[in-house]
């Protein structure tokens, strides 16, 4: 058997499979819309299988040159970190795709849209998965950036999937602008790293000594991009708006995968980030801010998906805080947290979607008491919620344990903050679950497909399974955490029935959480006040203001341009004059200008020059168009006299002929237009400054021309080698008139061009005057 079958390169295989998935789905889906869901499920499952196999196979990578000029490599590496995030992307992806295969047809039906839009949805969903898989495996920073932006593109189209709705379009644009523009900072950071460290390879960068300020700034820029993607304060506002996307998108991109990409990025660069304390401190601040803002606002929201979206902001705040704490618990905790959160949060999102499908309600106040009507869903999401609020026997318990341990190690104050944060989580999650499943039944639900409740149950049950049988999860998280830790990382978690800090903190959290839940009546006005303050002065407001402001400025400039500047030749003349003026000022120009010698033989030329100049000025005097034409011809004719005086009879002859011909044509044209119009137009408007301004500009232009011409002509001429050569060669070329021989032989190519221009002009004249008929 060939080597690639016995020993397949899993990194490459996974990459190919992941990108084949959207392609196959779109193509087959367009051909047979009914097959879309199945193809999507199968291809995603295949990707998941490859990720699974990779855990038992040895680490694999591919590293080939991509662009030698820029030093880019196509480098994919399926290491522990990549494996974990790929597992998330494909595993949660599979469940979401299964869910979506039933949800999307319903969704389209509700919106009176055809099923032929299905492939577009799955195409982008799977494209996102592929981009995510590529992103986590990429070892080349630029390659990574390519996938990074690809996730933003996929997210843009998925959020805007309901493009007939104005809010979808606006939210999609907002998400794209926030994540796309902040992504450019990542690019700048990466390029700065390359400039400092000389490589685009992330593993190589990490091994290099890197303590420079520029490296820190670069990492800071990357961090900003990453935090924007993870919806951290102050870039968080795009995420709640992105909830206009269909539910599977929210469950997948905006809880498990795309927002996780941000913290993944931090994990990738963490060994470098760790040597800059100010970066870590900044992460702590942003993390706690996000926890607080997300948590408080989540408590005030009524729309199901909004509650979850704000809670996601808060949850990723935990991860950022743990990275910021930076101790061993923090690093392992951060990776573990992402894993646990992805499981439970996507379950909750899917729950929200299922509830909406069943009852048509999107607000929490419209639902209630569904536990009796939809027990399976209630159980699944209940387990997931239990995981999120870190009840024992769920995987979530350990995520909080690690969080508490990491915070406590930093100091009691951090411990207290951690408890408060966790209590917030407890409050909003409980509020969500209780609001939906307990209390009186407000809307009687329809029965819904197993495709919609099944994935929730699977996710919910698995939080408990992995809460009891922790070995696989720990294994995955440990192998993932080795990369940020840049060395072996160990996660020691177990249930201890003693009064250690973590347990005390956990109990305090629950107590505080329960207190928060029961005391909703007292704090909710305050929370609402905070939320509305956020609406009024928050970054979303800033975003909208900026866009509005830009439009205003844009309109204002445009108005000035169109009214006063466009179609004005002055806008070319004035800046050109200024540039030449600058050139004159900034160059040494003593002796650069000379008057030139003048002998008696030059007198006729000088007189004709005077005549020409006077005639040129005279052109602007007459009112009548016919006289203008005649005056212009005068300029031309006097020029031809000058040419002949300068020893250029050929030029003089042609100048006279051309001037005549042009005059004839000009007059013929004037005859075509009625005198009445011309006479009407010749009356100048009574502008107060118009003429004076024109004169000033004309003087500027004249002065510009004067300096250029004088400056150039003042230079003593170089050797006349070339023209001597022409005179020498002319007899050889069978001619006597050097000018004619130049035109037809030495530089015949110019003449070719010139007559081509003439032929072209004729075509143009014909088409303009005679509508293109040649005869």
């Amino acid at each position: 058997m060939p080597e690639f079958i016995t020993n397949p390169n899993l990194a490459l295989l996974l990459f190919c499979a992941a990108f084949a998935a959207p392609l196959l789905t779109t193509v087959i889906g367009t051909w047979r819309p009914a097959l879309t869901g199945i193809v999507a499920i199968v291809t995603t499952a295949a990707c998941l299988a490859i990720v699974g196999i990779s855990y038992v196979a040895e680490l694999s990578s591919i590293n080939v040159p991509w662009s030698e000029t820029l030093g880019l490599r196509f480098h994919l590496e399926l290491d522990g970190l990549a494996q974990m995030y790929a597992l998330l992307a494909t595993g949660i992806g599979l469940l979401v795709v299964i869910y979506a295969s039933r949800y999307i047809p319903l969704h389209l039906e509700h919106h009176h849209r055809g099923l032929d839009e299905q492939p577009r949805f799955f195409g982008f969903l799977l494209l996102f998965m592929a981009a995510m898989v590529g992103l986590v495996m990429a070892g080349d920073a630029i390659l990574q950036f390519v996938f990074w932006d690809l996730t933003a593109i996929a997210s843009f189209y998925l959020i805007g999937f309901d493009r007939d709705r104005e809010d979808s379009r606006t939210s999609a644009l907002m998400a794209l602008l926030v994540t796309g523009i902040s992504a450019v900072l990542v690019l700048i950071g990466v390029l700065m790293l390359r400039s400092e460290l000389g490589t685009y390879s992330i593993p190589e960068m990490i091994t290099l000594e890197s303590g420079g300020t520029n490296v820190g700034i670069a990492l800071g820029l990357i961090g900003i991009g990453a935090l924007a993607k993870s919806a951290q304060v102050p870039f968080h506002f795009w995420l709640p708006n992105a909830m206009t996307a269909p539910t599977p998108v929210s469950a997948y991109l905006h809880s498990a995968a795309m927002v996780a990409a941000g913290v993944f990025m931090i994990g990738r660069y963490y060994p470098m980030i760790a040597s800059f304390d100010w970066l870590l401190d900044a992460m702590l601040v942003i993390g706690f801010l996000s926890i607080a803002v997300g948590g408080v606002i989540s408590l005030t929201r009524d729309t199901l998906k909004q509650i979850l979206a704000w809670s996601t902001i808060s949850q990723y705040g935990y991860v950022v805080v743990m990275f910021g704490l930076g101790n061993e618990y923090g690093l392992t905790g951060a990776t573990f947290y992402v894993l646990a959160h992805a499981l439970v949060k996507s379950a909750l999102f899917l729950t929200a979607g299922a509830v909406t499908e069943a009852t048509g309600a999107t607000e929490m106040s419209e639902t209630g008491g569904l536990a009796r009507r939809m027990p399976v869903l209630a159980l699944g999401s209940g387990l997931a919620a239990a995981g999120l609020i870190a009840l024992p026997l769920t995987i979530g318990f350990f995520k909080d344990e690690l969080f508490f341990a990491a915070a406590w190690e930093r100091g009691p104050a951090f411990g207290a903050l951690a408890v408060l944060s966790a209590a917030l989580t407890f409050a909003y999650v409980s509020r969500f679950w209780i609001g939906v499943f307990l209390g009186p039944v407000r809307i009687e639900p329809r029965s819904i497909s197993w495709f919609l409740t099944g994935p929730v149950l699977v996710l919910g049950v698995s939080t408990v399974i992995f809460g009891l049988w922790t070995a696989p999860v720990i294994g995955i998280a440990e192998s993932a955490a080795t990369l940020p830790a840049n060395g072996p990382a160990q996660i020691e978690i177990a249930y201890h029935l003693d009064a250690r800090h973590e347990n005390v903190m956990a109990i305090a959290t629950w107590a505080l959480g329960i207190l928060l839940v029961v005391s909703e009546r007292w704090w909710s006005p305050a929370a609402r006040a905070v939320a509305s303050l956020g609406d009024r002065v928050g970054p979303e407001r800033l975003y909208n203001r900026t866009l509005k402001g830009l439009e205003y400025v844009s309109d204002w400039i445009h108005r000035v341009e169109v009214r006063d500047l466009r179609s004005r030749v002055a806008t070319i003349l004035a800046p050109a004059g200024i540039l030449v003026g600058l050139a004159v000022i900034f160059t040494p120009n003593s002796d650069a200008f000379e008057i030139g010698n003048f002998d008696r033989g030059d007198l006729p030329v000088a007189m004709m020059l005077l005549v020409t100049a006077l005639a040129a000025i005279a052109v602007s005097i007459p009112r009548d168009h016919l006289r203008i034409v005649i005056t212009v011809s005068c300029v031309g004719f006097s020029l031809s006299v000058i040419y002949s005086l300068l020893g250029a009879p050929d030029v003089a002859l042609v100048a006279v002929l051309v001037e005549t011909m042009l005059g004839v044509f000009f007059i013929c044209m004037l005859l075509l237009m009625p005198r009445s119009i011309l006479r009407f137009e010749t009356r100048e408007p009574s502008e107060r400054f118009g003429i004076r301004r024109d004169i000033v500009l004309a003087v500027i232009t004249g002065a510009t021309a004067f300096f250029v011409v004088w400056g150039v002509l003042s230079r003593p001429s170089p050797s006349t080698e070339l023209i001597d050569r022409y005179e020498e060669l002319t007899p050889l070329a069978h001619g006597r008139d050097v000018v004619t021989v130049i035109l037809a032989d030495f530089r015949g190519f110019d003449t070719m061009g010139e007559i081509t221009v003439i032929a072209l002009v004729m075509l143009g004249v014909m088409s303009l005057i005679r509508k293109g008929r040649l005869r």
Partner: protein
Amino acid sequence: MTLFISITIAVIFGSAAYLMLKRDLIRVITGMILLGNAANLFIMAAGLRRGRAPVVPSEFETSDSLVQAMTLTAIVISFGVATLVLSLVYRVYDAHHSVDLRRLGSVEAVQSGLDDQPTAHVIQAADDAQDARQDREIAARQGGRW
């Protein structure tokens, strides 16, 4: 002499600029023709030496033949372009019944929705109607498209 020629060229340039700033298209064209003339004179003036007509064999010093060839080419090209512009002005007149740049410009400002003069929409409507009419005319004249 250098100074004289420079001054003359500068004057023609300035005069040309003055005309090109006018709103009357006929004057603008005249400015363009003058501009070409100024450039041609400059090319001639840029010659490396002066003398008799360069017809060989010649016992006198001859003038620079290359600048003459260049001037010839430039004259012809500027003649061609001037003819083209004249035809275009005629078309503009045909379409607008005006050769007044200001009028054309104001119509454009109106089209961008930026003019608040009360007559604005009238001009706009007239202009649109004319666009439409021209399209119809073109469509009607199947044989003689443009």
